[in-house]
Protein backbone atom coordinates (compact mmCIF):
# COMPACT_ATOMS: atom_id res chain seq x y z
CA UNK A 1 0.00 0.00 0.00
CA UNK A 2 2.78 2.32 0.84
CA UNK A 3 4.20 2.25 -2.67
CA UNK A 4 1.13 3.76 -4.27
CA UNK A 5 1.37 7.25 -2.87
CA UNK A 6 5.06 7.19 -3.60
CA UNK A 7 4.43 6.30 -7.22
CA UNK A 8 1.87 9.04 -7.54
CA UNK A 9 4.29 11.44 -6.01
CA UNK A 10 7.02 10.43 -8.40
CA UNK A 11 4.71 10.75 -11.35
CA UNK A 12 3.65 14.18 -10.22
CA UNK A 13 7.25 15.21 -9.77
CA UNK A 14 8.16 13.95 -13.23
CA UNK A 15 5.24 15.75 -14.77
CA UNK A 16 6.15 19.02 -13.15
CA UNK A 17 9.75 18.53 -14.21
CA UNK A 18 8.66 18.00 -17.80
CA UNK A 19 6.62 21.19 -17.66
CA UNK A 20 9.57 23.12 -16.26
CA UNK A 21 11.92 21.78 -18.93
CA UNK A 22 9.71 22.36 -21.93
CA UNK A 23 10.39 25.56 -23.83
CA UNK A 24 8.20 28.38 -22.58
CA UNK A 25 5.49 29.69 -24.83
CA UNK A 26 7.51 32.65 -26.10
CA UNK A 27 9.36 31.25 -29.11
CA UNK A 28 11.43 34.39 -29.75
CA UNK A 29 13.13 34.38 -26.36
CA UNK A 30 14.13 30.74 -26.75
CA UNK A 31 16.02 31.60 -29.93
CA UNK A 32 17.63 34.68 -28.48
CA UNK A 33 21.37 34.56 -28.90
CA UNK A 34 23.67 35.05 -25.95
CA UNK A 35 26.94 36.91 -26.49
CA UNK A 36 29.55 36.32 -23.85
CA UNK A 37 32.45 38.69 -23.36
CA UNK A 38 35.31 38.89 -20.91
CA UNK A 39 38.40 40.97 -20.33
CA UNK A 40 39.52 44.43 -19.26
CA UNK A 41 38.26 45.74 -15.93
CA UNK A 42 39.17 49.37 -16.74
CA UNK A 43 36.04 49.93 -18.92
CA UNK A 44 33.92 47.40 -17.01
CA UNK A 45 31.63 50.01 -15.37
CA UNK A 46 30.53 51.15 -18.85
CA UNK A 47 30.30 47.62 -20.27
CA UNK A 48 28.10 46.58 -17.37
CA UNK A 49 25.67 49.43 -18.08
CA UNK A 50 25.76 48.71 -21.81
CA UNK A 51 25.10 44.99 -21.49
CA UNK A 52 22.27 45.60 -19.06
CA UNK A 53 20.65 48.33 -21.15
CA UNK A 54 21.02 46.41 -24.41
CA UNK A 55 19.75 43.13 -22.97
CA UNK A 56 16.79 44.65 -21.15
CA UNK A 57 15.80 46.78 -24.16
CA UNK A 58 15.28 43.51 -26.07
CA UNK A 59 17.16 44.77 -29.10
CA UNK A 60 18.55 41.41 -30.12
CA UNK A 61 21.07 39.27 -28.37
CA UNK A 62 21.60 38.93 -24.64
CA UNK A 63 25.04 40.22 -23.72
CA UNK A 64 27.20 39.27 -20.75
CA UNK A 65 30.57 40.69 -19.78
CA UNK A 66 32.94 39.49 -17.09
CA UNK A 67 35.74 41.80 -16.02
CA UNK A 68 38.50 39.27 -15.54
CA UNK A 69 41.38 41.44 -16.75
CA UNK A 70 42.79 42.15 -20.21
CA UNK A 71 45.25 39.28 -20.25
CA UNK A 72 42.65 36.73 -19.20
CA UNK A 73 40.23 38.13 -21.80
CA UNK A 74 42.80 37.70 -24.58
CA UNK A 75 43.49 34.13 -23.44
CA UNK A 76 39.78 33.35 -23.44
CA UNK A 77 39.06 34.71 -26.91
CA UNK A 78 42.05 32.76 -28.26
CA UNK A 79 40.65 29.64 -26.59
CA UNK A 80 37.21 30.39 -28.13
CA UNK A 81 35.49 30.34 -24.74
CA UNK A 82 34.00 33.83 -25.23
CA UNK A 83 32.50 35.66 -28.20
CA UNK A 84 34.34 38.92 -27.64
CA UNK A 85 37.09 40.18 -25.37
CA UNK A 86 38.03 43.57 -24.00
CA UNK A 87 41.65 44.64 -23.68
CA UNK A 88 43.41 47.83 -22.61
CA UNK A 89 46.80 47.01 -24.08
CA UNK A 90 46.15 46.50 -27.79
CA UNK A 91 47.55 43.54 -29.70
CA UNK A 92 49.88 44.34 -32.57
CA UNK A 93 48.42 43.84 -36.07
CA UNK A 94 50.72 40.82 -36.47
CA UNK A 95 49.42 39.25 -33.25
CA UNK A 96 45.81 39.83 -34.36
CA UNK A 97 46.53 38.27 -37.75
CA UNK A 98 48.19 35.24 -36.18
CA UNK A 99 45.33 34.58 -33.77
CA UNK A 100 42.62 35.36 -36.36
CA UNK A 101 41.24 38.29 -34.37
CA UNK A 102 39.71 41.63 -35.33
CA UNK A 103 40.56 44.51 -33.00
CA UNK A 104 38.89 47.91 -32.81
CA UNK A 105 38.86 50.78 -30.29
CA UNK A 106 35.62 51.32 -28.41
CA UNK A 107 36.10 53.75 -25.54
CA UNK A 108 38.48 56.15 -23.84
CA UNK A 109 38.88 56.65 -20.15
CA UNK A 110 40.97 58.92 -17.96
CA UNK A 111 43.47 57.67 -15.42
CA UNK A 112 44.04 60.16 -12.61
CA UNK A 113 46.62 60.53 -9.86
CA UNK A 114 44.88 60.66 -6.48
CA UNK A 115 46.34 62.13 -3.30
CA UNK A 116 45.52 62.18 0.40
CA UNK A 117 46.90 65.47 1.69
CA UNK A 118 45.18 66.83 4.80
CA UNK A 119 44.36 70.50 4.35
CA UNK A 120 44.60 70.55 0.56
CA UNK A 121 41.34 70.44 -1.40
CA UNK A 122 40.75 68.49 -4.59
CA UNK A 123 42.17 69.88 -7.85
CA UNK A 124 44.42 72.38 -6.09
CA UNK A 125 47.80 70.61 -6.14
CA UNK A 126 49.74 71.14 -9.37
CA UNK A 127 52.25 68.52 -10.47
CA UNK A 128 54.29 68.64 -13.64
CA UNK A 129 55.33 65.52 -15.50
CA UNK A 130 58.87 65.39 -14.11
CA UNK A 131 57.53 65.68 -10.55
CA UNK A 132 54.89 63.03 -11.12
CA UNK A 133 57.53 60.61 -12.41
CA UNK A 134 59.92 61.43 -9.56
CA UNK A 135 57.19 60.89 -6.96
CA UNK A 136 56.50 57.43 -8.35
CA UNK A 137 60.23 56.76 -8.73
CA UNK A 138 60.68 57.49 -5.04
CA UNK A 139 63.01 60.43 -5.68
CA UNK A 140 60.73 63.02 -4.10
CA UNK A 141 60.02 61.67 -0.62
CA UNK A 142 58.42 64.56 1.31
CA UNK A 143 55.36 66.56 0.36
CA UNK A 144 57.00 69.84 1.42
CA UNK A 145 59.78 69.23 -1.11
CA UNK A 146 61.14 72.46 -2.59
CA UNK A 147 60.13 71.49 -6.13
CA UNK A 148 56.50 70.88 -5.17
CA UNK A 149 56.47 74.11 -3.17
CA UNK A 150 57.90 76.07 -6.13
CA UNK A 151 55.08 74.84 -8.33
CA UNK A 152 52.39 75.49 -5.69
CA UNK A 153 53.23 78.84 -4.10
CA UNK A 154 49.76 79.39 -2.60
CA UNK A 155 49.44 76.00 -0.89
CA UNK A 156 50.43 75.06 2.64
CA UNK A 157 52.12 71.71 1.94
CA UNK A 158 52.08 69.23 4.85
CA UNK A 159 55.32 67.85 6.29
CA UNK A 160 54.46 64.26 5.42
CA UNK A 161 56.30 61.37 3.82
CA UNK A 162 55.19 60.47 0.29
CA UNK A 163 53.54 57.03 0.31
CA UNK A 164 53.16 55.68 -3.20
CA UNK A 165 50.24 53.30 -3.79
CA UNK A 166 50.16 51.29 -6.99
CA UNK A 167 48.19 48.35 -8.31
CA UNK A 168 49.36 44.98 -7.00
CA UNK A 169 47.61 43.02 -9.74
CA UNK A 170 48.43 43.55 -13.36
CA UNK A 171 45.98 45.89 -14.96
CA UNK A 172 45.16 48.04 -17.94
CA UNK A 173 44.99 51.04 -15.61
CA UNK A 174 48.65 50.49 -14.73
CA UNK A 175 49.48 50.12 -18.41
CA UNK A 176 47.85 53.45 -19.27
CA UNK A 177 49.56 55.20 -16.37
CA UNK A 178 53.06 53.76 -16.87
CA UNK A 179 52.73 54.28 -20.61
CA UNK A 180 52.06 57.95 -19.93
CA UNK A 181 55.00 58.24 -17.51
CA UNK A 182 57.26 56.55 -20.08
CA UNK A 183 56.17 59.00 -22.74
CA UNK A 184 56.86 62.09 -20.61
CA UNK A 185 59.87 60.97 -18.56
CA UNK A 186 63.01 59.43 -20.01
CA UNK A 187 64.07 58.42 -16.48
CA UNK A 188 60.88 56.46 -15.97
CA UNK A 189 61.23 54.83 -19.37
CA UNK A 190 64.71 53.51 -18.67
CA UNK A 191 64.21 52.67 -14.99
CA UNK A 192 60.76 51.10 -15.11
CA UNK A 193 59.05 51.20 -18.50
CA UNK A 194 55.42 50.64 -19.45
CA UNK A 195 53.37 47.55 -18.74
CA UNK A 196 50.27 46.12 -17.11
CA UNK A 197 52.51 45.07 -14.24
CA UNK A 198 55.92 46.68 -13.73
CA UNK A 199 58.69 46.59 -11.17
CA UNK A 200 57.58 49.48 -8.98
CA UNK A 201 60.59 51.31 -7.51
CA UNK A 202 58.73 52.27 -4.33
CA UNK A 203 55.41 52.11 -2.53
CA UNK A 204 52.85 49.48 -1.67
CA UNK A 205 50.34 47.64 -3.84
CA UNK A 206 46.55 47.66 -3.55
CA UNK A 207 44.31 45.02 -5.06
CA UNK A 208 42.38 46.42 -8.08
CA UNK A 209 41.06 49.99 -8.32
CA UNK A 210 39.10 49.85 -5.04
CA UNK A 211 42.17 48.52 -3.21
CA UNK A 212 44.28 51.45 -4.37
CA UNK A 213 41.52 53.93 -3.47
CA UNK A 214 41.14 52.42 0.00
CA UNK A 215 44.86 52.52 0.69
CA UNK A 216 45.14 56.14 -0.48
CA UNK A 217 42.15 57.10 1.65
CA UNK A 218 43.70 55.42 4.72
CA UNK A 219 47.25 56.79 4.44
CA UNK A 220 47.91 60.48 5.01
CA UNK A 221 50.49 61.55 2.46
CA UNK A 222 49.57 58.87 -0.07
CA UNK A 223 49.60 59.25 -3.84
CA UNK A 224 48.14 56.66 -6.18
CA UNK A 225 46.40 56.45 -9.52
CA UNK A 226 43.07 55.06 -10.56
CA UNK A 227 40.47 55.07 -13.25
CA UNK A 228 38.59 58.41 -12.95
CA UNK A 229 35.17 56.95 -12.03
CA UNK A 230 36.65 55.16 -9.02
CA UNK A 231 38.27 58.37 -7.80
CA UNK A 232 34.91 60.15 -7.98
CA UNK A 233 33.07 57.31 -6.24
CA UNK A 234 35.64 57.19 -3.45
CA UNK A 235 35.64 61.03 -3.22
CA UNK A 236 39.41 61.22 -3.46
CA UNK A 237 41.35 64.33 -4.38
CA UNK A 238 42.69 64.46 -7.90
CA UNK A 239 45.52 66.77 -9.00
CA UNK A 240 46.16 69.24 -11.82
CA UNK A 241 48.45 68.17 -14.64
CA UNK A 242 49.78 70.08 -17.66
CA UNK A 243 47.94 69.43 -20.92
CA UNK A 244 49.61 69.31 -24.33
CA UNK A 245 49.95 73.12 -24.33
CA UNK A 246 51.42 73.17 -20.82
CA UNK A 247 48.51 74.80 -19.02
CA UNK A 248 47.28 72.98 -15.91
CA UNK A 249 43.97 71.14 -16.28
CA UNK A 250 41.74 69.08 -13.96
CA UNK A 251 40.76 65.49 -14.58
CA UNK A 252 37.32 66.35 -15.97
CA UNK A 253 38.77 68.54 -18.74
CA UNK A 254 38.73 67.36 -22.35
CA UNK A 255 42.46 68.10 -22.57
CA UNK A 256 43.35 65.76 -19.65
CA UNK A 257 46.66 64.18 -20.69
CA UNK A 258 46.41 60.61 -19.30
CA UNK A 259 43.86 58.89 -21.48
CA UNK A 260 43.67 55.20 -22.20
CA UNK A 261 41.93 53.64 -25.15
CA UNK A 262 40.30 50.29 -24.63
CA UNK A 263 39.72 47.79 -27.41
CA UNK A 264 37.38 44.97 -28.37
CA UNK A 265 38.60 41.71 -29.89
CA UNK A 266 36.36 39.49 -32.02
CA UNK A 267 37.24 36.22 -33.78
CA UNK A 268 37.23 36.26 -37.59
CA UNK A 269 35.82 32.72 -37.67
CA UNK A 270 32.73 33.60 -35.57
CA UNK A 271 29.67 31.96 -37.14
CA UNK A 272 27.72 34.45 -39.31
CA UNK A 273 24.56 34.75 -37.17
CA UNK A 274 26.63 35.43 -34.09
CA UNK A 275 28.85 37.84 -36.00
CA UNK A 276 25.78 39.82 -37.13
CA UNK A 277 24.57 39.98 -33.53
CA UNK A 278 27.99 41.15 -32.35
CA UNK A 279 28.14 43.85 -35.03
CA UNK A 280 24.63 45.02 -34.17
CA UNK A 281 25.58 45.22 -30.50
CA UNK A 282 28.78 47.22 -31.04
CA UNK A 283 27.06 49.57 -33.51
CA UNK A 284 24.54 50.18 -30.75
CA UNK A 285 27.41 50.84 -28.30
CA UNK A 286 28.84 53.56 -30.56
CA UNK A 287 25.51 55.14 -31.41
CA UNK A 288 23.28 54.76 -28.33
CA UNK A 289 25.91 53.81 -25.74
CA UNK A 290 27.91 57.03 -25.88
CA UNK A 291 25.51 58.76 -23.46
CA UNK A 292 26.00 56.06 -20.83
CA UNK A 293 29.77 56.38 -21.19
CA UNK A 294 29.73 60.15 -20.70
CA UNK A 295 27.54 59.82 -17.61
CA UNK A 296 30.17 57.47 -16.14
CA UNK A 297 32.96 59.97 -16.95
CA UNK A 298 34.45 58.00 -19.81
CA UNK A 299 35.00 59.51 -23.24
CA UNK A 300 33.36 57.91 -26.28
CA UNK A 301 35.44 57.81 -29.46
CA UNK A 302 35.37 60.92 -31.62
CA UNK A 303 32.51 60.83 -34.14
CA UNK A 304 34.72 60.37 -37.20
CA UNK A 305 36.72 57.61 -35.54
CA UNK A 306 33.52 55.79 -34.57
CA UNK A 307 32.20 56.23 -38.08
CA UNK A 308 35.40 54.73 -39.47
CA UNK A 309 35.07 51.62 -37.27
CA UNK A 310 31.36 51.25 -38.11
CA UNK A 311 32.10 51.67 -41.80
CA UNK A 312 34.93 49.15 -41.92
CA UNK A 313 34.83 46.51 -39.20
CA UNK A 314 31.14 46.60 -38.30
CA UNK A 315 29.53 47.08 -41.69
Amino acid at each position, binding site marked *: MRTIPLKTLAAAALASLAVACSPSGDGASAERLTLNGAGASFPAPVYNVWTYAYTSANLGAKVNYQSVGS*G*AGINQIKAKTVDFAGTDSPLTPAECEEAGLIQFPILRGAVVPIVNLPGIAADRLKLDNALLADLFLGRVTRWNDARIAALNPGLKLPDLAV*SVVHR*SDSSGTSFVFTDYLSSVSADWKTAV*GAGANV*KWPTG*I*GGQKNPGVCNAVA*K*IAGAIGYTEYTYALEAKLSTVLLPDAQGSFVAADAAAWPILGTTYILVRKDTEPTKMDALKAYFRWCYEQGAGHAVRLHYAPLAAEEAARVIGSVLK
Partner: protein
Amino acid sequence: MEICHAAGMKRPSAWSDPVFRWLCLGCAALCGLLMVGFFVQLAIASGDAWRTFGLGFFSSAEWDPVAERFGALPAIVGTLLTTAIALVIALPLAFVSALFIVDAPPWLSRLLGQAVDLLAAIPSIIYGMWGLFVLTPIMQRIMASFGIETNGFGLLTSALILTLMILPYICAVMRDVLRMTPPMLREAAFGIGCTRWETARDILMRYGIRGLLGGVFIGLGRALGETMAVLFVAGNVMRVPHALTDGCTTIAATLANNFAEADGLQRSALFALGLILLVMAFLIQLLAQYYLRMTGAKRGER
Protein backbone atom coordinates in the same frame (compact mmCIF):
# COMPACT_ATOMS: atom_id res chain seq x y z
CA MET B 1 4.89 -8.61 -3.01
CA GLU B 2 6.12 -8.94 0.56
CA ILE B 3 8.30 -11.95 -0.29
CA CYS B 4 9.71 -10.26 -3.31
CA HIS B 5 10.58 -7.29 -1.19
CA ALA B 6 12.31 -9.37 1.42
CA ALA B 7 14.33 -11.18 -1.22
CA GLY B 8 15.24 -7.90 -2.71
CA MET B 9 16.47 -6.77 0.66
CA LYS B 10 18.70 -9.79 1.01
CA ARG B 11 20.38 -9.63 -2.35
CA PRO B 12 22.31 -6.35 -1.91
CA SER B 13 24.23 -7.68 1.08
CA ALA B 14 25.81 -10.23 -1.27
CA TRP B 15 27.37 -7.61 -3.50
CA SER B 16 27.30 -4.46 -1.39
CA ASP B 17 30.42 -5.31 0.58
CA PRO B 18 32.79 -5.64 -2.39
CA VAL B 19 31.20 -2.61 -4.07
CA PHE B 20 31.58 -0.59 -0.90
CA ARG B 21 35.16 -1.75 -0.61
CA TRP B 22 36.01 -0.74 -4.17
CA LEU B 23 34.25 2.57 -3.68
CA CYS B 24 36.33 3.31 -0.58
CA LEU B 25 39.51 2.17 -2.27
CA GLY B 26 38.68 4.33 -5.28
CA CYS B 27 38.10 7.42 -3.15
CA ALA B 28 41.26 6.83 -1.13
CA ALA B 29 43.29 6.29 -4.28
CA LEU B 30 41.79 9.45 -5.76
CA CYS B 31 43.18 11.48 -2.86
CA GLY B 32 46.65 10.09 -3.45
CA LEU B 33 46.40 10.54 -7.20
CA LEU B 34 45.22 14.12 -6.80
CA MET B 35 48.25 14.89 -4.65
CA VAL B 36 50.61 13.39 -7.23
CA GLY B 37 48.66 15.13 -9.96
CA PHE B 38 49.17 18.52 -8.32
CA PHE B 39 52.91 18.03 -8.14
CA VAL B 40 53.16 16.81 -11.74
CA GLN B 41 50.92 19.56 -13.10
CA LEU B 42 52.77 22.32 -11.24
CA ALA B 43 56.14 20.90 -12.26
CA ILE B 44 55.17 20.76 -15.94
CA ALA B 45 53.57 24.23 -15.97
CA SER B 46 56.58 25.77 -14.22
CA GLY B 47 59.10 24.11 -16.55
CA ASP B 48 59.86 27.31 -18.47
CA ALA B 49 60.71 29.22 -15.32
CA TRP B 50 63.08 26.52 -14.03
CA ARG B 51 64.78 26.27 -17.42
CA THR B 52 65.21 30.04 -17.63
CA PHE B 53 66.24 30.87 -14.08
CA GLY B 54 67.42 27.54 -12.68
CA LEU B 55 68.16 27.46 -8.97
CA GLY B 56 68.78 31.22 -9.14
CA PHE B 57 64.99 31.50 -8.99
CA PHE B 58 65.22 30.85 -5.23
CA SER B 59 67.86 33.48 -4.55
CA SER B 60 66.82 36.27 -6.92
CA ALA B 61 64.88 39.13 -5.35
CA GLU B 62 63.95 40.64 -8.70
CA TRP B 63 60.37 40.64 -9.97
CA ASP B 64 60.30 42.67 -13.15
CA PRO B 65 57.45 41.73 -15.49
CA VAL B 66 58.56 44.27 -18.11
CA ALA B 67 62.06 42.80 -18.44
CA GLU B 68 60.69 39.28 -17.73
CA ARG B 69 63.05 38.62 -14.83
CA PHE B 70 61.51 36.75 -11.93
CA GLY B 71 62.81 35.61 -8.55
CA ALA B 72 61.06 33.92 -5.67
CA LEU B 73 63.07 35.24 -2.74
CA PRO B 74 60.76 38.10 -1.62
CA ALA B 75 57.70 35.87 -1.69
CA ILE B 76 59.43 32.99 0.11
CA VAL B 77 60.92 35.26 2.79
CA GLY B 78 57.58 37.02 3.25
CA THR B 79 55.73 33.74 3.61
CA LEU B 80 58.20 32.30 6.12
CA LEU B 81 58.48 35.49 8.19
CA THR B 82 54.75 36.20 8.45
CA THR B 83 54.09 32.56 9.34
CA ALA B 84 56.91 32.38 11.88
CA ILE B 85 55.94 35.61 13.65
CA ALA B 86 52.28 34.61 13.69
CA LEU B 87 53.13 31.22 15.17
CA VAL B 88 55.43 32.65 17.82
CA ILE B 89 52.68 34.97 19.02
CA ALA B 90 49.75 32.57 18.63
CA LEU B 91 51.26 29.46 20.16
CA PRO B 92 51.62 30.53 23.81
CA LEU B 93 48.32 32.43 23.66
CA ALA B 94 46.51 29.41 22.27
CA PHE B 95 48.03 27.07 24.86
CA VAL B 96 47.15 29.16 27.89
CA SER B 97 43.65 29.91 26.53
CA ALA B 98 43.07 26.20 26.00
CA LEU B 99 44.30 25.47 29.53
CA PHE B 100 41.94 28.03 30.95
CA ILE B 101 38.95 26.83 28.93
CA VAL B 102 39.53 23.24 30.09
CA ASP B 103 39.80 24.21 33.75
CA ALA B 104 37.17 26.98 33.86
CA PRO B 105 33.75 26.46 35.48
CA PRO B 106 31.45 24.61 33.04
CA TRP B 107 29.29 27.60 32.05
CA LEU B 108 32.32 29.79 31.30
CA SER B 109 34.13 26.96 29.59
CA ARG B 110 31.17 26.36 27.27
CA LEU B 111 30.80 30.05 26.51
CA LEU B 112 34.48 30.59 25.76
CA GLY B 113 34.73 27.33 23.85
CA GLN B 114 31.90 28.38 21.57
CA ALA B 115 33.46 31.80 21.08
CA VAL B 116 36.67 30.13 19.94
CA ASP B 117 34.77 27.86 17.55
CA LEU B 118 32.95 30.87 16.13
CA LEU B 119 36.22 32.73 15.61
CA ALA B 120 37.59 29.76 13.71
CA ALA B 121 34.57 29.85 11.40
CA ILE B 122 35.02 33.47 10.27
CA PRO B 123 35.92 33.59 6.56
CA SER B 124 39.36 35.00 5.84
CA ILE B 125 38.03 37.87 3.73
CA ILE B 126 36.37 39.26 6.86
CA TYR B 127 39.73 39.23 8.65
CA GLY B 128 41.21 40.97 5.61
CA MET B 129 38.61 43.73 5.63
CA TRP B 130 38.95 44.16 9.36
CA GLY B 131 42.71 44.36 8.92
CA LEU B 132 42.43 46.99 6.21
CA PHE B 133 39.87 49.21 7.90
CA VAL B 134 40.73 48.79 11.58
CA LEU B 135 44.15 47.27 12.11
CA THR B 136 46.20 49.34 9.63
CA PRO B 137 45.10 52.72 11.05
CA ILE B 138 45.79 51.38 14.57
CA MET B 139 49.26 50.23 13.51
CA GLN B 140 49.84 53.61 11.91
CA ARG B 141 49.01 55.32 15.21
CA ILE B 142 50.95 52.93 17.43
CA MET B 143 54.04 53.21 15.27
CA ALA B 144 53.69 56.99 15.15
CA SER B 145 53.70 57.07 18.97
CA PHE B 146 57.13 55.40 18.80
CA GLY B 147 58.20 58.02 16.29
CA ILE B 148 58.12 55.65 13.32
CA GLU B 149 56.38 57.07 10.26
CA THR B 150 54.69 54.18 8.47
CA ASN B 151 51.60 53.54 6.44
CA GLY B 152 50.40 50.64 8.60
CA PHE B 153 50.70 48.02 5.88
CA GLY B 154 53.43 45.41 5.92
CA LEU B 155 55.09 42.49 7.61
CA LEU B 156 53.97 43.04 11.20
CA THR B 157 50.36 43.82 10.30
CA SER B 158 50.16 40.70 8.12
CA ALA B 159 51.65 38.59 10.89
CA LEU B 160 49.15 39.98 13.42
CA ILE B 161 46.22 39.21 11.13
CA LEU B 162 47.57 35.70 10.66
CA THR B 163 47.94 35.37 14.44
CA LEU B 164 44.28 36.20 14.91
CA MET B 165 43.30 33.73 12.21
CA ILE B 166 45.28 30.74 13.46
CA LEU B 167 44.79 31.37 17.18
CA PRO B 168 41.26 29.89 17.34
CA TYR B 169 42.29 26.88 15.23
CA ILE B 170 45.21 26.00 17.44
CA CYS B 171 43.25 26.79 20.59
CA ALA B 172 40.27 24.62 19.57
CA VAL B 173 42.46 21.62 18.80
CA MET B 174 44.51 22.05 21.98
CA ARG B 175 41.36 22.35 24.08
CA ASP B 176 40.04 19.05 22.74
CA VAL B 177 43.38 17.37 23.26
CA LEU B 178 43.72 18.61 26.85
CA ARG B 179 40.19 17.43 27.61
CA MET B 180 41.12 13.93 26.55
CA THR B 181 43.79 13.59 29.23
CA PRO B 182 42.56 10.94 31.70
CA PRO B 183 41.40 12.77 34.88
CA MET B 184 43.24 10.18 36.93
CA LEU B 185 46.61 11.46 35.71
CA ARG B 186 45.84 15.02 36.64
CA GLU B 187 44.40 14.06 39.99
CA ALA B 188 47.50 12.00 40.70
CA ALA B 189 49.69 14.98 39.82
CA PHE B 190 47.70 17.26 42.12
CA GLY B 191 47.84 14.52 44.71
CA ILE B 192 51.63 14.57 44.91
CA GLY B 193 51.57 18.34 45.28
CA CYS B 194 52.13 19.61 41.75
CA THR B 195 51.00 23.15 41.05
CA ARG B 196 48.57 23.81 38.20
CA TRP B 197 51.36 24.94 35.95
CA GLU B 198 53.49 21.92 36.75
CA THR B 199 50.54 19.68 35.97
CA ALA B 200 49.97 21.46 32.69
CA ARG B 201 53.61 21.32 31.70
CA ASP B 202 54.56 17.85 32.84
CA ILE B 203 51.32 15.91 32.53
CA LEU B 204 48.93 17.53 30.06
CA MET B 205 51.56 18.66 27.59
CA ARG B 206 53.47 15.37 27.68
CA TYR B 207 50.37 13.27 27.39
CA GLY B 208 48.85 15.22 24.53
CA ILE B 209 51.96 16.24 22.62
CA ARG B 210 50.81 14.54 19.41
CA GLY B 211 47.50 16.30 19.45
CA LEU B 212 49.01 19.61 20.49
CA LEU B 213 51.49 19.45 17.64
CA GLY B 214 48.64 18.53 15.34
CA GLY B 215 47.01 21.82 16.35
CA VAL B 216 50.23 23.69 15.67
CA PHE B 217 50.49 22.20 12.21
CA ILE B 218 46.90 23.02 11.37
CA GLY B 219 47.68 26.63 12.29
CA LEU B 220 50.94 26.53 10.39
CA GLY B 221 49.26 25.16 7.29
CA ARG B 222 46.62 27.86 7.41
CA ALA B 223 49.17 30.63 7.90
CA LEU B 224 51.36 29.41 5.04
CA GLY B 225 48.58 29.32 2.50
CA GLU B 226 46.45 32.22 3.71
CA THR B 227 45.77 34.52 0.79
CA MET B 228 42.96 37.04 1.07
CA ALA B 229 43.62 38.49 4.52
CA VAL B 230 47.34 38.90 3.87
CA LEU B 231 46.70 40.41 0.44
CA PHE B 232 44.73 43.21 2.08
CA VAL B 233 47.36 44.30 4.58
CA ALA B 234 50.76 43.09 3.33
CA GLY B 235 51.33 46.01 0.99
CA ASN B 236 52.09 43.58 -1.84
CA VAL B 237 55.65 44.73 -2.36
CA MET B 238 57.99 42.46 -4.27
CA ARG B 239 60.99 43.19 -2.09
CA VAL B 240 62.63 41.33 0.77
CA PRO B 241 61.46 43.14 3.93
CA HIS B 242 64.22 44.53 6.17
CA ALA B 243 62.02 45.86 8.97
CA LEU B 244 58.77 44.85 10.61
CA THR B 245 57.06 47.88 9.09
CA ASP B 246 58.26 47.16 5.53
CA GLY B 247 55.74 46.16 2.92
CA CYS B 248 56.00 42.53 1.94
CA THR B 249 54.24 39.81 0.00
CA THR B 250 53.65 36.10 0.37
CA ILE B 251 53.58 33.32 -2.19
CA ALA B 252 49.81 32.95 -1.96
CA ALA B 253 49.22 36.72 -2.22
CA THR B 254 51.56 36.98 -5.22
CA LEU B 255 49.65 34.23 -6.99
CA ALA B 256 46.30 35.85 -6.29
CA ASN B 257 47.55 39.24 -7.45
CA ASN B 258 49.12 38.22 -10.71
CA PHE B 259 47.49 35.08 -11.97
CA ALA B 260 44.55 36.52 -13.88
CA GLU B 261 46.66 38.54 -16.27
CA ALA B 262 49.87 36.59 -16.43
CA ASP B 263 51.00 34.66 -19.43
CA GLY B 264 54.25 33.36 -20.87
CA LEU B 265 57.22 33.33 -18.57
CA GLN B 266 55.45 35.15 -15.74
CA ARG B 267 52.72 32.52 -15.65
CA SER B 268 55.37 29.86 -15.51
CA ALA B 269 57.15 31.68 -12.67
CA LEU B 270 53.85 31.84 -10.78
CA PHE B 271 53.39 28.09 -11.22
CA ALA B 272 56.93 27.66 -9.89
CA LEU B 273 55.94 29.69 -6.80
CA GLY B 274 52.91 27.44 -6.39
CA LEU B 275 55.16 24.39 -6.52
CA ILE B 276 57.46 25.90 -3.90
CA LEU B 277 54.50 26.52 -1.58
CA LEU B 278 53.28 22.95 -2.03
CA VAL B 279 56.76 21.56 -1.32
CA MET B 280 57.05 23.78 1.76
CA ALA B 281 53.76 22.46 3.14
CA PHE B 282 54.85 18.92 2.32
CA LEU B 283 58.23 19.34 4.04
CA ILE B 284 56.57 20.68 7.16
CA GLN B 285 54.35 17.59 7.30
CA LEU B 286 57.41 15.36 6.91
CA LEU B 287 59.30 17.22 9.61
CA ALA B 288 56.36 16.88 11.97
CA GLN B 289 56.16 13.15 11.40
CA TYR B 290 59.89 12.79 11.83
CA TYR B 291 59.91 14.81 15.03
CA LEU B 292 57.10 12.75 16.54
CA ARG B 293 58.85 9.50 15.70
CA MET B 294 62.19 10.70 17.06
CA THR B 295 60.75 11.93 20.34
CA GLY B 296 58.32 9.04 20.77
CA ALA B 297 60.72 7.03 22.91
CA LYS B 298 61.37 9.96 25.22
CA ARG B 299 57.69 10.26 26.00
CA GLY B 300 57.49 6.61 26.88
CA GLU B 301 55.73 5.59 23.69
CA ARG B 302 57.07 2.49 22.05
